[in-house]
């Protein structure tokens, strides 16, 4: 199998990747944590996801450098957009108002904190939350715990690196069961577990050979399923997971990757086949907000996936 050509700028799929970044940057304003003065949780979620992708791209720009020069064109815009929201006092107070939601609300700050950004108000909030027992007292499913540990560790809030292997053992990925019954939640659990424990490709999976083989198999099987039913969001996450696990070339992987690339239109990747059909059907009549909600997450996934794939080949 031919190795992808390494473009001197941004990754092996330079043009599509730049199209994703351009589309996202143009639509940043669609991320709205407040609507009519009230918290809009889909907006907070999008902000947290944006912050995570920004942290990865910043890290790769620093650590790998070559090929990430184009990121500089976008990084400042993304950062300015995020800091404007995070520094909004109404947003900042929300974590103290509702400690059960505090981790969720603070996750964009935690990601920025990892790259050196500090806010005295948010730092104080973190200390208060620690005193109040949050987010420790909040019960979450195992892969969400892995997510939380990664965010706090990357933010520099943990003295020691979390035990990724122990965290992995509690997740679906450690005992995925039959592919016939793996549902959407189970598939997302697997992808998140892999992406987090591998720090988006920066670290080898802390798995022995048998565990890695079993994980590869489970991910590849799920990939074929989500490719068949046209769930591009999961296809993207599963492809990125395979790269994190250093998967060998396979027909399923290559075909699903081609289908995933083909799903993009003008830089945006719809979440699934139904979303793509709806966008096509409604055309210009569809509002920008609706189109953004149907495409933003999968487009972020596409950015991550293209970079993780590219880094893998560079670093190997």
């Amino acid at each position, binding site marked *: 199998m031919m190795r992808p050509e390494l473009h001197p700028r941004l990754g092996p799929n330079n043009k599509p990747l730049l199209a994703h970044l351009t589309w996202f940057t143009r639509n940043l304003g669609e991320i709205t944590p407040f609507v009519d003065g009230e918290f809009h949780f889909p907006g907070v979620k999008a902000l947290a996801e944006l912050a995570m992708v920004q942290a990865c791209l910043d890290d790769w720009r620093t650590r790998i450098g070559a090929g990430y020069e184009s990121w500089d064109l976008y990084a400042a815009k993304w950062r300015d957009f995020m800091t404007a929201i995070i520094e909004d006092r109404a947003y900042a107070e929300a974590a103290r108002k509702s400690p059960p939601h505090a981790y969720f609300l603070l996750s964009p700050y935690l990601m920025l904190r990892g790259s050196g950004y500090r806010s005295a108000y948010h730092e104080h909030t973190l200390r208060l939350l620690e005193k109040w027992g949050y987010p420790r007292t909040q019960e979450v499913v195992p892969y969400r715990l892995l997510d939380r540990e990664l965010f706090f560790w990357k933010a520099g809030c943990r003295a020691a690196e979390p035990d990724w292997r122990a965290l992995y053992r509690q997740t679906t990925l450690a005992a995925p069961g039959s592919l*016939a019954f*793996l549902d959407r939640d189970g598939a997302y659990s697997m992808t998140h577990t892999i992406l987090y424990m591998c720090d988006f490709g920066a670290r080898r999976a802390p798995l022995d050979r048998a565990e890695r083989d079993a994980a590869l198999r489970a991910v590849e099987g799920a990939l074929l*399923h989500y490719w068949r039913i046209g769930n591009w969001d999961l296809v993207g996450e599963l492809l990125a997971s395979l790269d994190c696990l250093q998967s060998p070339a396979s*027909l399923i992987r290559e075909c699903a990757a081609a289908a995933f690339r083909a799903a993009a239109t003008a830089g945006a990747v719809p979440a699934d086949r139904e979303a793509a059909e709806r966008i096509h059907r409604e055309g210009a009549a569809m509002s920008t907000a609706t189109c953004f909600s149907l495409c933003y997450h999968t487009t972020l996934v596409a950015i991550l996936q293209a970079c993780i794939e590219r880094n893998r080949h560079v670093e190997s």
Partner: protein
Amino acid sequence: MSNPDQPLRETLVQAAELAMDWATRVVPTGAQADALRQVALQLCAGIREGTRLFGRTLSDDATLPALPLLVTMSRGEMMALANRISLADSLPPAPQEVGDAEQARFLGALALSYAQAHDLPCVSALLRIGTRLSLHDPWLTEARDYLVDQQQPDGRFGLLCAVLRTLDDGAADEAMLRLQVEVLWALNEVASTGSGASATPPTRSGPSCSMPAIKVSPGLASQRHTQCEIGDSDSGIGCV
């Protein structure tokens, strides 16, 4: 139920006997249902004997297309392909870019993908293709076990109660029998091949000798397996 400690042959025979009990009790409501019931009974007998019911009677070559096409082709096309491959008297080498192991993995994963949608006819069809091509992979084994595990205590396959309530008695019988034939056909192919087959077929103890032999032809109404969803009618060229 598939039991990992039980030899495959025993598992299949047990499933066939249970299915035979059910088919024996069914009172068909029409000629189509009666023909399907007869096929189901013969497939059960074939599983018990370890012999293939449907011969390789199609003289046309059947070739497995490039594997990615199996994912993008319609469900109906895939079912028709499985029938051609199962019945073809010769299988020219497929123009695959990958080896047997990867083909087997691909088919197994696809079968389990259809299992996620509870689409037993498609799981059965893909298992038949894998068996006909002598492909082996843990996912194909999982697909086979999945089918066996779908058998209900009364011998029927599938979890159809909710759907069947929406159909009249005649349509419900036919839907159950069609599904029964699809699953039993796959298990019959497995039972007559490799580890599923017995070295010496056992003496037949159930109904079989008095049954009319069936000449298999895809054009014969009783042998035509619908590609439609339960509740839809197969017009021959589409589902309505």
